[in-house]
């Protein structure tokens, strides 16, 4: 299999077997589609499944190069978007399991062997996500800026000792009130986020909580409290979306964001992982 030492195989997704076995599988959706590295995309029959793959140059996508390149934000963004573009297009073909970013093989033969070892896992997982899509819901709370530390801007120079004591006490009281108001807002928002998640979970066949994104990553001032993914039957999507809208008005202390539909990224790994 040393046909081309400098080339690797990038795996986008594992999908149902496409009809017409043995044929070079280039479904219409892949024509003209630029995958990772700008490479064309094709389907390969392997272990009774279809692997959606593309070629990659190992000078850029080999192990050492990947370790370096993944730390380059522009490269990471371009690669993640290309990976997603292909998976999104391939999802039109039927049930599919997206592969974790940067799964690269030395040859189609080694990839096929890896798929064959876990064929039954993949079959079961493909059934689990069939006719279902992932939706994301994030909840944020915007808290007022934390009051400065006591003494930092204290009531210096009030008129006389009595006046100073009076306004000092007023200052401390005000500060205490601000802190407790902030705490209450936050606790209320957390309770709201919990209520939202519990209500939305009823629509989902599976849920997964991602860690809340840091404010540095989101570029938003508001703090994220919930970063959840829901796997929904197609028939539940309408009710789910309108429930999100209802919940947004029922819980004015938080702001909700709905994203999707996504290919089932957050639900592809559950049973296949850890083997």
């Amino acid at each position, binding site marked *: 299999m040393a046909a081309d030492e400098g080339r690797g195989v990038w795996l986008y997704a594992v999908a149902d077997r496409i009809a017409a076995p043995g044929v070079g599988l280039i479904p219409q959706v892949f024509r003209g589609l630029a995958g990772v590295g700008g490479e064309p995309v094709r389907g390969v029959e392997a272990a009774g499944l279809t692997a959606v793959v593309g070629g990659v140059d190992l000078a850029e996508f080999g192990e050492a190069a990947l370790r370096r390149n*993944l730390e380059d934000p522009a490269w990471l963004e371009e690669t993640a978007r290309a990976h997603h573009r292909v998976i999104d297009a391939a999802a039109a073909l039927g049930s599919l399991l997206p592969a974790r970013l940067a799964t690269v093989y030395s040859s189609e033969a*080694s990839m096929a062997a890896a798929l064959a070892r876990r064929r039954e896992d*993949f079959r079961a997982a493909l059934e689990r996500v069939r006719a279902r899509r992932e939706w994301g819901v994030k909840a944020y709370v915007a808290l007022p800026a934390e009051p400065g530390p006591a003494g930092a801007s204290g009531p210096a120079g009030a008129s006389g000792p009595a006046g100073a004591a009076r306004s000092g006490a007023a200052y401390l009281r005000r500060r205490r009130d601000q802190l407790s108001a902030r705490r209450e807002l936050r606790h209320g928002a957390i309770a709201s986020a919990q209520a939202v998640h519990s209500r939305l979970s009823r629509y989902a066949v599976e849920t997964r909580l991602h*860690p809340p994104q840091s404010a540095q*990553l989101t570029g938003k001032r508001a703090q994220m409290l919930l970063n*959840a993914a829901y796997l929904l039957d197609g028939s539940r999507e309408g009710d789910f979306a309108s429930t999100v*809208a209802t919940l947004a008005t029922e819980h004015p202390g938080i702001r909700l964001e709905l*994203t999707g539909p996504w290919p089932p990224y957050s639900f592809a*790994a559950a049973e296949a992982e850890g083997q």
Partner: protein
Amino acid sequence: MNRAPAPSPATAGRVIQPRAVDIPPERVALVDLLDRVLAGGVVISGDITLSIADVDLVTVSLRALVASISALAAPDSAPGSAGSAPGAAGSAPGAADRPPEPGRREP
């Protein structure tokens, strides 16, 4: 290049109606996408799989991303989040500054 979501203090804190939109794949927020492609997806090992299931590596690359975004953002755009780690792949982002999770990761 469109790598950094712009800070949007104008919308922060306002309740907006969520909209279910079919987002073109080019337009999805990078952070949402990274949650999914770095911490989701099926992990398949092979004889020479080069996988970034390796949490350290993901954390390192997200740190680089955070640094580049922070450099673009106004200095006061993220109060209270200084020092919080990026969240991905099961790392504990900003554990000290984070509220209890509203629920647990389900099996």
